C-alpha cells in the first residue's frame, strides 16, 4: 500500500496522464486547423497577397462586397450548383441501383463488387487525365465506342440490302457519334465532368447503399412475404426507410465533395471552354494561387464554407428525421 502511494506521488496524476495523451492532438489541431482557420478569417477582411512582403491591411468587408458584386462569382455558383445536382443525382441513382443488384447471393459477387470499387480508389488527377484522352473528339475511345453500335448496324443493313435510307442513317449516326465534342463545347463540357465524376463516385454511393441494404433484418421481408406484399410495397415500406439514413449520409458526403470539385476540372477542362466549367473551387484556386489575392480568396473560401455548412445542415435535419422514422 505504502509502495503504491509513493508511486502515485512521484508519477503523474490521472488528470495529467489524460492531458499528456490529449495534448499532442490538441496542439496539432490548434496549429494545423484552428489557427489557419482563424488566421484566414482575419485575412478575409484584409488586403493581403501572400507573395508580397507587405503586412495585411484591414479593409473591413470590402473583399466580400467585391466578390458579391462580381457577376462572374454568381455564375460560378450556378455552374457548381448544376454540377452538384446532376452529378449527385446520377451517382445516387446508379450507385443505389447497383447496390440493389448486388444485394443478393451469386457466384463472383465479391470479385464484381471489388472491381466496381476501383474507380473511387484512383486519384482524381489520374482519372481527369485519362478521361481527357478518352473523351478526346479526335482519338478518344468514348466516341469510338458510341459509334461502334451504329457502325455495326450500318454494315449489317448494307450487307442485307436494307433500304438505302436506313443504311445511310446508321452511317450518319456512326459518323456523328465519332465527331461528338465533349470537353470543348460549353454545354457538353459540364456534362462531361458529370460523366467523369459519376464514373468515379457511383461506387461510393453503391458501397454505402450496400452496407445499408445488407443490414436490413431478413425477417422483415419474410413477414412481408407471409402477408403477400408486392415487391414495390417491400421496397417502399421496408428497404427504402431502413436504408435512408445511410443514403442520406452518402448524399451528404457526395454533396460536400462535389461542391468542392476542383481537381477534375483543373485537369480535364481548366474551367473552360470560356468559363463554362469554372466551379467556385476552381475560381478560388485561381484567386489564391494564380492571382495571389490571398485576402479575397480567403473571403471566397468562407462564403463557400457557409454554403456547405448550410447544405449539410439541411441533410442532417433530414437524416435525423429519417432516423426517427426508421
Amino acid at each position, binding site marked *: 500500500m505504502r509502495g503504491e502511494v509513493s508511486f502515485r506521488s512521484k508519477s503523474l496524476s490521472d488528470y495529467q496522464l489524460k492531458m499528456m495523451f490529449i495534448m499532442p492532438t490538441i496542439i496539432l489541431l490548434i496549429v494545423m486547423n484552428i489557427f489557419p482557420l482563424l488566421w484566414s478569417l482575419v485575412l478575409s477582411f484584409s488586403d493581403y497577397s501572400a507573395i508580397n512582403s507587405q503586412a495585411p491591411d484591414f479593409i473591413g468587408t470590402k473583399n466580400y462586397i467585391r466578390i458579391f458584386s462580381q457577376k462572374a462569382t454568381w455564375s460560378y455558383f450556378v455552374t457548381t450548383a448544376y454540377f452538384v445536382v446532376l452529378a449527385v443525382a446520377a451517382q445516387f441513382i446508379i450507385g443505389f441501383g447497383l447496390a440493389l443488384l448486388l444485394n443478393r447471393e451469386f457466384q463472383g459477387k465479391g470479385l464484381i463488387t471489388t472491381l466496381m470499387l476501383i474507380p473511387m480508389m484512383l486519384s482524381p488527377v489520374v482519372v481527369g487525365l485519362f478521361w481527357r484522352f478518352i473523351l478526346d473528339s*479526335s482519338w478518344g475511345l468514348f466516341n469510338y465506342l458510341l459509334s461502334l453500335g451504329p457502325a455495326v448496324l450500318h454494315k449489317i443493313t448494307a450487307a442485307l440490302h436494307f433500304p438505302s435510307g436506313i443504311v445511310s442513317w446508321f452511317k450518319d449516326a456512326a459518323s456523328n457519334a465519332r465527331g461528338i465534342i465533349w470537353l*470543348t463545347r460549353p454545354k457538353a463540357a459540364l456534362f462531361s465532368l458529370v460523366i467523369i465524376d459519376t464514373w468515379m463516385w457511383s461506387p461510393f454511393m453503391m458501397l454505402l447503399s450496400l452496407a445499408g441494404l445488407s443490414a436490413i433484418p431478413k425477417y422483415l421481408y419474410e413477414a412481408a412475404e407471409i402477408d403477400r406484399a408486392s415487391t414495390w410495397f417491400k421496397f417502399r415500406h421496408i428497404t427504402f426507410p431502413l436504408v435512408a439514413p445511410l443514403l442520406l449520409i452518402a448524399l451528404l458526403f457526395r454533396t460536400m465533395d462535389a461542391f468542392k470539385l476542383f481537381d477534375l476540372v*483543373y485537369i480535364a477542362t*481548366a474551367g*473552360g471552354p470560356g468559363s463554362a466549367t469554372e466551379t467556385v473551387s476552381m475560381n478560388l484556386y485561381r484567386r489564391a*494561387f*494564380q*492571382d*495571389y489575392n490571398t485576402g479575397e480568396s480567403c473571403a471566397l473560401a468562407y462564403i463557400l464554407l457557409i454554403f456547405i455548412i448550410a447544405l449539410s445542415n439541411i441533410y442532417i435535419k433530414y437524416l435525423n428525421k429519417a432516423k426517427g422514422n426508421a
Partner: protein
Amino acid sequence: MKRSLKIYIPLFVCLMALLIVIGCAKKETTLTLVWAEWDPANFLVELAKDFTEETGIKVVVDPIPWGQFETKVFTAFAAKSDTYDIVIGDSQWLGRGAEGGHYVELTEWMKTTGLDKSMSPKALKYLGEYPKESGKYYAVPAETDCNGFAYRRDLFEDPKEMEDFKEKYGYDLAVPETYTQMKNIAEFFHRPDAEPPLYGIAMWLGKDYDAITMGFQQVMWSFGGSYGDPKTYKVDGILNSDEGVKALEFYVDLAKFTPPGSENYYWNECLTAFQQGKVSMAMDFFAFFPGLLAEDKSPYADSTGFFAAPGQVGEDGEFRRYISMGGQGMSISSYSKNKEAAKQFINWFCKPKNQLKWAKLGGLAASSQVLESEEFLKMNPFNPAFVESLKYVRDFWAVPEYAELLQRCQTNWNAAVTGQMTAKEAMDKLAKEHEEIFRNAGYYDK
C-alpha cells in the same frame, strides 16, 4: 561508476572528434535550379556537368510539371524559402518577381560581366528587363523561344496541290507571308471528309495557362491592335479597338480549319496533331520542334518544314509583323544562400562556347555571337526560322498583376473561339476587366 566512466569517456572523445572532422570538412556548394519539366531542363542537366567539372560546384535541376510550375515557385517565394538558387521562370513573371523582391537585380553585375552586350537585345529585353525600357535587369535569357510554324512540305510541294491552289487563289502555294495567305492555305487543305481526314491548321486555342493568349496576341499586334498604353495603362478603346476586334474575328475564323475539339489545344496537342498527319500546318514553340524531326515520333519527319509567323497588312496599308515571345530567363532568388555561385553559373552558361554546346544539346541560344553563326543556322532545320522570328518578338504585360490579366484573356478569348460570345463582346469585356485590374492595383492613382 568507474566502469561506466571507462566506457563513456572514450565514447565522448570519439564523438567530439567526429564533430570536429565534420565541422572542418569543406562545405560543398550545390546550386538548385528550378524549371519546368521539359526537354530543355534535361539538356541543362547535361550541360551543367561541364560546369561542375570546371568549378566543383554541383548543379541540381528540379523539374516541375508545367501545370504546377508557377504555383510551386511562387509558393516557395511566399515562404521566403532558400530551396531554389536560380529560378528559370516565364518572362511574364518578371514584374511579380522584381516588385515582390523575390528576384535579385542583376543590372550592375551584367554590365560588369558584359552580358548586357553579348546577349540578343530582343531576348534580353523580353526575358530579362523590368520595367521595359528601364535598363534594369532581373534575368538573363536561358531558353530563348518564340512562336513558330511547322508545315508539311510533302503537301506544299506536291505539283497537283500547287496547281489546284494557284487555280483557286490566284497565287503560288508557298509558306505564308501574311495571315490572309495562311487562312487561304488552311482553308485549302481543310478536308475533314477525306479518309483519313486532313485539317488546315493546328493552333493554340486552349484555356490552359497562356495558350490562346500566346497564339492570338501576335495576330492582334500584326493587325495593328495592342493590349493598351504601357505608360498610362489605359486599355479601353485600345485593346477593343477596331483592329483588335478584327484580329479576333480573324482568329475565330481561322479556327474553323482546325481539327474538331481543338479548342483546348496548346503546344502538346498541336505537336501531336502534326505528328499524326492530321494538319497541314501547326503552330508551336520552336523548343518543341525537335519532336517533329524525330522519325520514331513523326512519320513526316523528313518532309517537315518550318517558317516564322507571318505578318499582316493593316487597313492603313502598313505591314506589321509581331511574334509572341516564349522561353524563360534565369533569375537569382533573393532568398538563395549561394548568390555568388549562381552568378558564376549564369556567367558560365552565357559564354559563347557554352551557348553553342547548349544549342547542340537541343536548347535555343540567346548569345548574339552564336545566333549569327553559320554553325547555329545549320544545326537544325528550324533554326533559320527561329533567328528570323527573334527580330519580331513581343511579349505580354510583365507587370506584377500579369496572372490576373492573362487569366481574363484566356477566359474571354477562349469563350470567343467556342462561340460563347462575339469577338466584339469578348474584346469589350476584356478591356473593362483589364482596366478594373489596373484600377484595383492603383495604376491610375500614380
